């Protein structure tokens, strides 16, 4: 589909040819390749597809062309635009968004849980009836996915990783309560299987589509696969909702997705800009939704029947999640920050550290990281 869109763009600009460069699927490898290109000041690719957590890093390194104010910035999801700013300047345009979702079984429950405690009790009840083995499955392996799961619990309890000044607050009481809840889900309540500590998205999807789990935390990609009766035993019996709030917090959904940015060393800044504008225009986003099931980053599209027809997901429920999306910390050292956090989260969940001690250690290491990077002042001036 991207090839067709590029061909149409090239037809509009007869003097150019647009090549598509395929990069590795694995985020780490793609990131590594980008760093090699950009660090060497390679002029190509002119336009880059960025993961939402990379924009600040590449912008701070001076590798991205600053973008003028988007004429229709209001149309994009605010959290996605904020994640693409660095020190007040916009460096990338949201292309499609990804959002954390709680998948629930419509044959087991009347409706989605409205609080985290309701979710916990509903999961226990479902297990009690013997209809499911696990109450809830989430991504607990030591990788980026674990941070998004933690982030949703964190916001549910009213916490955050960094505050608005960029200070580390992941060792505060709400964070300890959130991590304790996650740990108790495995060890005390037993609603989450211990094996989830080695699971990424696909293992949780397998558990849920086999009818083994009452709730699953996952991304929108799982929807179409769960509806495929060939491989899924729960097709037609699934609903989605945002992650429910606990005491002191709000409903949330971790924000992911892809952005388009312009290489600072490009020889063709005007054309690159035109290409970014073209690919992020409503028509192209709608086509992406229809063909690839990816969620547009423009809010106005969600009010149109065209999107409801293009997407197989229950749009109203998805919008409820999109309205409460939270970005991960916007900082040039995000990847390393995340890696430090992952280690301590995983130690706490596997019983090697107490939640409070784990978060204290993680916070101390993240503060040292920000100090080494010269970023203690905070990401926004």
């Amino acid at each position, binding site marked *: 589909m991207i090839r067709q869109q590029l061909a149409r763009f090239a037809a509009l600009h007869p003097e150019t040819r647009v090549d598509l460069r395929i990069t590795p699927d694995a985020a*780490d490898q793609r990131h*590594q390749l980008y*760093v090699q290109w950009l*660090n060497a000041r390679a002029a190509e690719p002119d336009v880059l597809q960025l993961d939402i957590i990379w924009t600040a*890093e590449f912008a*701070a*390194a*001076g590798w991205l062309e600053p973008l003028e104010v988007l004429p229709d910035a209001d149309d994009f999801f605010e959290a996605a635009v904020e994640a693409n700013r660095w020190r007040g300047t916009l460096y990338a345009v949201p292309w499609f968004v990804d959002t954390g979702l709680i998948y629930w079984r419509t044959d087991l429950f009347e409706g989605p849980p409205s609080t985290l405690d309701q979710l916990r009790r509903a999961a226990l009840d479902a297990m009690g009836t013997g209809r499911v083995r696990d109450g809830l499955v989430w991504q607990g*392996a*030591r*990788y980026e996915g674990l941070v998004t799961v933690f982030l949703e619990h964190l916001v549910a309890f009213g916490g955050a990783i960094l505050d608005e000044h960029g200070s580390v607050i992941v060792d505060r009481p709400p964070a300890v309560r959130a991590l304790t809840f996650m740990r108790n889900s495995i060890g005390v309540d037993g609603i989450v299987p*211990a*094996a989830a*500590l*080695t699971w990424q998205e696909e293992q949780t999807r397998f558990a849920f589509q086999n009818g083994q789990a009452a709730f699953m935390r996952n991304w929108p990609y799982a929807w179409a696969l769960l509806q495929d009766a060939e491989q899924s035993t729960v097709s037609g019996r699934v609903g989605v909702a945002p992650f429910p709030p606990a005491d002191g917090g709000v409903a949330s959904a971790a924000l992911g997705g892809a952005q388009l940015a312009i290489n600072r060393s490009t020889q063709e800044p005007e054309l690159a800009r035109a290409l970014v504008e073209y690919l992020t225009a409503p028509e192209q986003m709608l086509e992406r939704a229809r063909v690839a099931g990816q969620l547009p980053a423009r809010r106005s599209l969600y009010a149109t029947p065209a999107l409801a027809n293009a997407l197989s997901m229950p749009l109203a429920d998805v919008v409820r999640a999109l309205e409460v999306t939270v970005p991960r910390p916007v900082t*040039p*050292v995000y*990847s*390393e920050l995340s*890696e430090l956090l992952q*280690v*301590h989260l*995983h*130690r706490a*969940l*596997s*019983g*090697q*550290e107490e939640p409070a001690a784990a978060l204290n250690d993680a916070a101390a290491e993240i503060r040292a990281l920000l100090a*080494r*990077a*010269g970023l203690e002042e905070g990401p926004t001036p």
Partner: protein
Amino acid sequence: MSASVAGRADARLARLLVAPALVIVFGIALVPIAATVWESLHQRDLRLPWLGTPFIGFGNFGEALADPRFGEAVLHTLVFAAFSVPLELTLGLALALVMHHVVRGRGVARVATLLPWAIPTVVAALVWRFIFETGGGGSGVEWLTSPVAAWAPIIIADVWKTTPFVAVLLLAGLQAIDRELYDAARMDGAGPARQLVTITLPLLAPALVVAAAFRALDALRLFDLPYVMTGGGPGTATEPLSLYAFIALMQRLRVGYGSALSISVFVLTLLVALVSVRVLTRVSPGDHA
């Protein structure tokens, strides 16, 4: 006079002939090592290009010493070697003795023994991971999520994979032992156990030391099994030094610190290599005869 001229010409020719080999050794071994040492003395962080690449002496090594994750990674590496190498030597010796005494189907027995060694480590690791994952092996134990138990699958996979290598090395050693020694011992009334202790083991000592050295050097560079099977987890409970160096270099993109960690892997293996060469010269009968 003419002889010495000829000698000098020979020497020149010899140097010329050796030169390509030296260039290759220099280019392949020494240049990358020197480059890594050079990087390890600088701060270079690809994610933080605004910090530049200042020379910081042994700063990266100082950071490593103060980094608990580094100390734990060293410990993990040593503990892994301490468990896996003796197991591989013992089982490898047993396997070699069996192969040595197999009369019929010798070729088949050897090929069958060598099979695990022929399988790429990553493939074997994926299979072992699958076996131990999610209530693994029908045992109901969550092997990979317990900080201590997670070592068992890694050590088992390593022993399974490399015991054949040890066995073949020792088999070669066994075949070099003069059969007449056993005949003489039998005539003097020595049983199989006595023969093993007084003839086989002493004469096999050089081969055992070589096998132990090879295995220890490999074990200290442990990377692929935990990378595939546990990702170094839970937490960092099964993270060996090479994996931590990889994470520092390839994920954090900290070229300086990652290089310092790589150097420490190099130093650790070099030390063990030197010790084993020492031991080898002591146990080799030929050198002192």
